[in-house]
């Protein structure tokens, strides 16, 4: 009896040690191991919804343009482009290229997938990026037929697009998955990699696409994605070298502690993103219907939050527009915000109750608590905090059911418009100024670059003067990567591109 038991224990221990130590095959060593915090729901460029799915589409599909390692926009499937003087007509001449099943990729593929994204029956969440195409928005609203959308493919290599208004950033848009060709059948790709195996819930394996037009540039044999949600687990696997990447944009942001820890060993990095985090004032509700109060509450909170809460990894924001697209450079802070509050008190009596509504997330919690303290110290104002679940928070924000809340935006493309149009959306703020949409509309239809810029500058100035929001900081994405990984292109739109990635021995 006893000897049987000990044999059994030995056998179990033996199998365990066998199971836990599996050596990587040579192919494994040329494969990048990544983790997506959430399994992608769908892999189709025109249906991709979030940064993880967009990143994945970038590896599997190719559009007219692509950002290179330095972030410069370079032609991909476009051989060349002709742009009309009024910036409303773009004619693309395509390179000859193939889908992964060997069929040729033509201008018709582009036309078909853009039409499909604009079809009212396609659940494409980023379709609004195609609204610059003439009649695109009307087609989505079922106000006109899809055939009236001005996209045509007169020859297999020629794609002609007519736009609603001059769009100087249209080439920028063509590097977004929503403007990639979507395959007409499942399991076909045209990007640097293709899907080899997708084990639902477990992993997604990509391998190099031999028919990719630029395949000499692709060094990786493949990429394996795991789907592990728990950030601690991800960290363990990174430490055990089972994962080559930790953190954004594929997974959760690194916590401050972890970032500091990894930074010491030289593994942690961050890259700036075209995104901004801010406090939104409800400009229709006292006390923030008064500009003085908005000014007082803005104060130097941006600098303090960036330096003290996020420990200097992010840039303090003085405008909703990040420096890469900002037009104005200034902020003359009010020297003494406390006097503003006192003036208000003298004039209108005691302050009404102020509540800062914020979503429950580690960083938002920290910032909210910090602001509450600072406002009390500096302005002698009591602010209550109300923390709620994310979806509920967004609903409240949409209904303007708040006095103060947080707002954030990450640009979809690199142009001031990506931020400025936001402030005409009723869900974003409760603020409105009739001059603002007018100026924006004028800028939209302006052909001259200088005049357009002047109009947009005017818009930015209105925002900075009227302060419907108090910008706090501009985003950056944090990640850690294994030392062997090189050549990952990180776009300021957040997406990572592993086309040029290499693994050092």
């Amino acid at each position, binding site marked *: 009896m006893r000897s049987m038991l000990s044999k059994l224990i030995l056998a179990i221990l033996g199998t365990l*040690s066998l*199971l836990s130590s599996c050596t990587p095959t040579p192919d494994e060593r040329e494969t990048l191991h990544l983790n997506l915090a959430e399994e992608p729901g*769908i892999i189709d460029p025109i249906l991709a919804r979030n940064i993880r799915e967009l990143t994945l589409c970038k590896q599997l599909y190719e559009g007219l343009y692509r950002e290179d390692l330095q972030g410069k926009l370079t032609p991909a499937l476009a051989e060349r482009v002709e742009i009309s003087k009024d910036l409303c007509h773009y004619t693309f001449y395509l390179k000859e290229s193939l889908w992964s099943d060997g069929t040729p990729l033509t201008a018709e593929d582009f036309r078909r997938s853009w039409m499909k994204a604009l079809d009212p029956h396609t659940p494409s969440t980023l379709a*609004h990026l195609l609204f610059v195409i003439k009649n695109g928005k009307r087609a989505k609203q079922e106000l006109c037929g899809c055939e009236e959308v001005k996209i045509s493919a007169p020859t297999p290599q020629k794609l002609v697009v007519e736009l609603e208004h001059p769009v100087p950033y249209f080439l920028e848009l063509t590097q977004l998955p929503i403007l990639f060709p979507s395959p007409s059948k499942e399991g076909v790709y045209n990007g640097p990699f293709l899907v080899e195996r997708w084990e639902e*819930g477990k992993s997604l394996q990509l391998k190099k696409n031999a028919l990719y037009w630029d395949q000499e540039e692709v060094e990786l044999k493949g990429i394996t994605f795991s*789907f592990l949600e728990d950030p601690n687990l991800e960290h363990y696997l990174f430490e055990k070298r089972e994962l080559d990447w930790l953190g954004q944009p594929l997974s959760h942001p690194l916590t401050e502690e972890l970032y500091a820890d990894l930074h010491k060993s030289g593994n942690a990095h961050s890259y700036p993103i075209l995104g901004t985090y801010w406090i939104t004032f409800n400009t229709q509700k006292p006390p923030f219907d008064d500009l003085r109060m908005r000014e007082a509450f803005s104060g130097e909170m941006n600098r303090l939050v960036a330096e003290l809460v996020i420990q200097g990894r992010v840039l303090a924001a003085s405008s909703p527009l990040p420096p890469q697209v900002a037009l104005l450079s200034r902020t003359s802070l009010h020297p003494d915000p406390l006097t503003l509050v006192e003036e208000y008190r003298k004039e209108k009596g005691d302050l009404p109750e102020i509540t800062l509504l914020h979503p429950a997330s580690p960083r938002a919690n920290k910032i909210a608590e910090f602001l509450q303290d600072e406002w009390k110290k500096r302005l002698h104002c009591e602010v209550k905090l109300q923390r709620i679940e994310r979806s509920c928070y967004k609903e409240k924000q949409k209904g303007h059911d708040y006095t103060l809340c947080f707002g954030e935006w990450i640009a979809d493309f690199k142009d001031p418009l990506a931020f400025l149009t936001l402030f005409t959306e009723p869900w974003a703020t409760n603020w409105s100024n009739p001059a603002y949409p007018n100026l924006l509309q004028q800028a939209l239809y302006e052909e001259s670059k200088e005049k357009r810029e002047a109009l947009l500058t005017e818009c930015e100035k209105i925002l900075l003067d009227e302060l419907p929001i108090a910008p706090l900081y501009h985003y950056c994405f944090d990640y850690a990567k294994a030392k062997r990984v090189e050549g990952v292109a990180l776009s300021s739109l957040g997406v990572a591109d592993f086309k040029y990635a290499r693994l050092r021995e």
Partner: protein
Amino acid sequence: MVLDTMLSYIVKRLFSNILALFVIVTATFFLMKSIPGDPFTQEKSLPKEVLDSLYAHYKLNDPLHVQYGNYLLSILKWDLGPSFKYPSRTVNDIIKSGFPISATLGIEALILSLLFGLTLGVISSLKQHQWQDYLSMSVAVMGISIPSFILAAFLQYTFSIKLDLLPVARWGTFAQSILPAISLAALPTAFIARLTRANMVEILSMDYIKTARSKGLSRRSVILKHALRNAGLPIIAYLGNLTANILTGSFIIEKIFGIPGLGQWFINSVANRDYTVIMGLTVFYSILLLSAIFFVDICYSYFDPRIQLEKRKGA
């Protein structure tokens, strides 16, 4: 006669279960619709035109009673619909791929907890107030008071990261299931151990045990045949509950060990407002749990001839 009562009891229970299921479906549906947010509030805010077309596509603009009616119909057909978050998958697919994993993990944990729970319980009842008793009962108290996720993190850190004996995470091999199963089994093991000990102590002092011993039966057969069988009855009653707890409680363990089971889907679907998945999994879990409890009740009457089914009409 016995068969007749059994049959009518089963039919009655079946009806009450269907009624319970209907109440659960209705309550979940309306509660779910009453929480703020929808499947599209998760990501970036979208322009109105796009949202309108999405709502129309997923028929979220229909009046609530129409959506409810459609949903009831689809349950009858057992077509639970596609997930909002994972449009290429239906809820039926999700159950098919996730449930076997959660069930395997659950059964492993169940076996572990029965095995160790009963053993610990019996040992400590036989060695009452000796060191074996104190040891097993302190283990049991620890099992009850340490939350499963702390135990899981501790086991993962010790056995995988420090000692490198077992895989840190993921699913597919037996080795990968050991730590999660132990973490999941700790609480029920402790509970069963305490339950067994209490029952055994009581039963061992009964007259019929003394009679059996005085008739010359061996100690072993008295304990196994006479004492344990009776002491085990409350444990069978507890099994229905336990199955429920293990299945719904596996969420956190699945997350810590990166296991693609059904528990994660259940929790995440609520956060994502993935309506079809919330409903589908609620219905699925309800059916499962109602049948587990039903089954346990029937077993109970089989193991304990003292129980008369007619007396349990109210149950």
